[in-house]
C-alpha cells in the first residue's frame, strides 16, 4: 500500500483516527456535539450507543461523506483529505448496492472508485469471491441474490481495496451464525495485519468478543470511552454470577438484600452488589434454598454499563 510506510512511522505513537471537539448540526438538530475520540492503529474500536445517538453522523464525517461544522479530524496522522477515502472501507448500516448490476461489474465499479487498477481489482475480486464461496454468482444480478449473499457482497465491497481502516456499521445484521463467524474471523485477520476496524453495533456480545477500545455515544455526545477493560473497571460495578440447581425461586428469596438483578435464568442469576451488600450473607441465604454449583465475581457485562450510562445521561 502506498501509505503503509508512513503509517508504520506513527504506528507506535499516534492515533489512526482522531476527532477533536467535532460537532455537526443539521438545521437546528445537533447530531454530533463536541465529540473527541481516538482510534489506535491495529485496534478494533467499538462505537456504541442507542439509535439516534449520533453514531452514523460521526461515521459519515470520518469517512469523508460530510464535513464537521466545527472541530478537527486527523486521519493516518494528517489532517483529513479527500485522498484518505481510498484508505477507508465503509459498510453503511443501510446497505447500498446497484440492484441491477451483476456482482462482478458491481465490484469492478466500486473498486475502481477506490482507486484500484484493473489487475489488482481482478485479483482482489477473485480472492474475495472465492473466500465467500460466491464465485459462481459473479455474473448474476445483485437483486437475484439472497439477502445473506448480498450482505457478503457488501462486505467484499468494503474490504476489496485492502483499506487501512474498516468502518463497519452493523456488519452482522442479516447474517446467519456461520457467516457471522466468517466476518468476525476476517475482522480479526485484518487486525492481525495491523489494520484498524471501527465497529458500530448493537450486538454487545460481538463487542465483548472483538473490541479493544470502545466509545459510548448518547444524544450526540461521547459519554464513556477508553479500553474495554478500563471502561469495565472504571464502572466500579461488582457483579456476581451464581449457577445453581434446584427449582426454588431464588430471586424472591434474595430480594431483601441490597442487590440489583441484572439477568435471571432458570438456573443462573447475575446481580450487581449495591452499597452495603454482604456477599457472604447472600451466599449463605442462597444455600438455604438451592444447591450452588458456581459462585463467581464477574466483570460487568458491557450491556449493563451501557444501560446504566445511558440512563444516567438521559
Amino acid at each position, binding site marked *: 500500500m502506498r501509505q503503509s510506510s508512513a503509517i508504520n512511522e506513527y504506528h507506535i505513537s499516534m492515533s489512526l483516527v482522531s476527532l477533536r471537539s467535532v460537532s455537526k448540526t443539521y*438545521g437546528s438538530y445537533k447530531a454530533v456535539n463536541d465529540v473527541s475520540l481516538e482510534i489506535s492503529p491495529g485496534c478494533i474500536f467499538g462505537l456504541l450507543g442507542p439509535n439516534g445517538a449520533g453514531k452514523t453522523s460521526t461515521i459519515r464525517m470520518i*469517512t469523508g461523506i460530510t464535513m464537521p461544522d466545527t472541530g478537527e479530524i486527523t486521519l493516518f496522522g494528517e489532517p483529513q483529505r479527500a485522498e484518505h*477515502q*481510498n484508505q477507508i472501507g*465503509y459498510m453503511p448500516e443501510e446497505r*447500498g448496492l446497484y440492484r441491477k448490476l451483476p456482482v462482478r461489474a458491481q465490484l469492478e465499479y*466500486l473498486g475502481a472508485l477506490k482507486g484500484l487498477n484493473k489487475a489488482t481489482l481482478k485479483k482482489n475480486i477473485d480472492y474475495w469471491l472465492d473466500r465467500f464461496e460466491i464465485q459462481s454468482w459473479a455474473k448474476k444480478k445483485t437483486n437475484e441474490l439472497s439477502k445473506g449473499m448480498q450482505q457478503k457482497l457488501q462486505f467484499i*465491497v468494503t474490504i476489496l481495496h485492502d483499506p487501512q481502516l474498516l468502518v463497519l456499521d452493523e456488519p452482522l445484521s442479516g447474517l446467519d451464525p456461520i457467516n457471522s463467524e466468517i466476518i468476525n474471523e476476517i475482522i480479526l485477520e485484518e487486525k492481525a495485519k495491523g489494520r484498524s476496524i471501527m465497529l458500530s453495533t448493537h450486538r454487545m456480545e460481538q463487542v465483548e468478543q472483538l473490541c479493544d477500545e470502545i466509545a459510548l455515544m448518547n444524544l450526540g455526545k461521547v459519554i464513556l470511552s477508553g479500553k474495554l477493560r478500563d471502561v469495565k473497571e472504571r464502572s466500579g460495578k461488582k457483579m456476581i454470577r451464581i449457577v445453581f440447581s434446584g427449582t426454588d425461586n431464588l430471586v424472591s428469596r434474595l430480594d431483601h438484600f441490597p442487590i440489583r438483578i441484572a439477568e435471571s435464568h432458570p438456573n443462573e442469576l447475575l446481580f450487581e452488589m449495591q452499597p452495603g451488600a454482604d456477599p457472604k450473607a447472600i451466599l449463605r441465604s442462597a444455600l438455604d434454598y438451592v444447591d450452588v454449583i458456581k459462585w463467581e465475581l464477574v466483570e460487568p457485562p458491557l450491556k449493563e454499563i451501557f444501560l446504566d450510562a445511558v440512563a444516567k445521561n438521559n
Partner: protein
Amino acid sequence: MLIVLKHEFKQKIRSKAFIILTFIAPLIMAGMIAVPVLITTINMGNEKQIAIIDETGKLGKYFTADTSKRPILQNPGGAASKNPSFGPSIHIAMFAPEAITPNTIDSLKSLLLQKKIAGYLLIPSGAITDSGVTATLRVTNANDITVEEFLSSHYKDGLFSERLKTGGIDPSFVQHARQGTEISMLKVSEGKETADNGVGFIGGYITGMFLYISMLLYGSLIMQSVIEEKNSRVIELLSSSVKPIDILIGKVLGVGLAGLLQVSVWASMFAAVSFFALPALLTTLGSSAGSIISPTSFIYFVLYFVFGYLMYATLYAGAGATVEQASDAQQVSMPITFLIILPILMMTSVIQSPSTTSSVILSLIPFFSPILMMGRIFSETPPFWQIALSFVLMGATFFGVLWVAGKIYRTGILMYGKKYSLREIFKWLKYS
C-alpha cells in the same frame, strides 16, 4: 469523476432501452413517412369507375382531354381514363346527350348501389349558361376525396373555358394572362440568397421539437439514475469514495455522451435519408435540401443541444436528489419541465417574427435559448453577436446551476425519510 463518467456512459449505452431507442426510433419515424406513401402506392392499382352524364354535351372533352391510357369496358359514349399523380386510377364512362336514355340514371344508380361504379356525376344542361345550376356527384363513399378532387378540378376548368367562349373570349388568351403571376420569395442572409418556401419554419419547428424531446428525455434519465442511487442507498457508498460534485458531474457528462452518441446516430440516419430521399421530396415542394440542413445550422444545433442538455440535466439531477421514490419525481421535476415547455409555446411567434425585441430577448434567456435561438437561426439568421451572447449566457447559467444543484445534491442524497419543502431545500444551499 472519470470513472463515474465511464460507468454511466457504459451503463446507458448497454441498456436495452437505449439500444432500442437509438435504432428503433428512426425506423418508426421513417415508417411514419413511408407508410402513407406505401398506401397510396397500393391504391395505385385500385381502379375506379366513374360515369359522367353530360347534358351540355360540351364539357365531356375536358374530362377526356388527357390521353387515355386504359380501355374501359363499359363505354357508351366515348370514354377516357386518367391517372392522378397519386391514388387510384379513375376510369370515366362519358354519357353525351345523345347517349342519355330515360333509364340511364336509374341503371347508373343501381350500378352504384351494387358498387360496380364508384359514382356518377350529373351535369345539367344549363350548367354553362346559368350559374345557379350546379353539377351533382353521387357516390357511396363520400370520404373518397380523390374522386371528388379529380372531378371538380376538371369540371371547374371546363366550365370556366366554356363560359369564356360563350362570352367570345379565347380561353387560351386567359390562360396566357394567368401565367407568371406568383411572387417568388427569396430568403436573404449574409452572402447568399435562397428560396425558402417555409422550409425554414418547418426546420425550426422540427429542431425545436427535437431539442425539447431530447432535453426532457435525457434530463429525466439523469433524474431517474440519481433517485435510483439514493433509493438503493448505494449513494452513501459512492460518496464515501468520491466527492458528490464529482459524482454529479460524472453522471451528467456520462449520460450526456451517451445522449450525444444517440443523437449523432439519429442525425447521421437523418442525413442519409435527406441525402437520398429528401432532395426528391423537396423538389416537389420547390426547394433545395441545402436550405434545410446547412453545415452551420447543424453545428449550431449540436452546440445548442449540448448547452441545453448541460443546464437541464444538472437541474434534473439536483431535483432528483431531493426525493427518494421514483413516484415523487414528477412533482419535483415539474417546474423544470415547465421551463422546457415554455419556449415551445413561444416558438411559433418567435419563428414568424424573429427580429422583434421580444423575440431577441426571449431567445437570449438561457433556458429558452436552445429552442428559440435555434428557431431564429432557421427563420432569419440573427446577428452573430446574439448567438455568441446566448452561448456565453448559457455557459454562465450552467455553472450557476451546477453550483446550486451541487449543493442540493450533496445534502439531498443523504437525506431520507421525508419530503422536503422548498424552504428546507433553500437552507441546504447554506450548508458548508
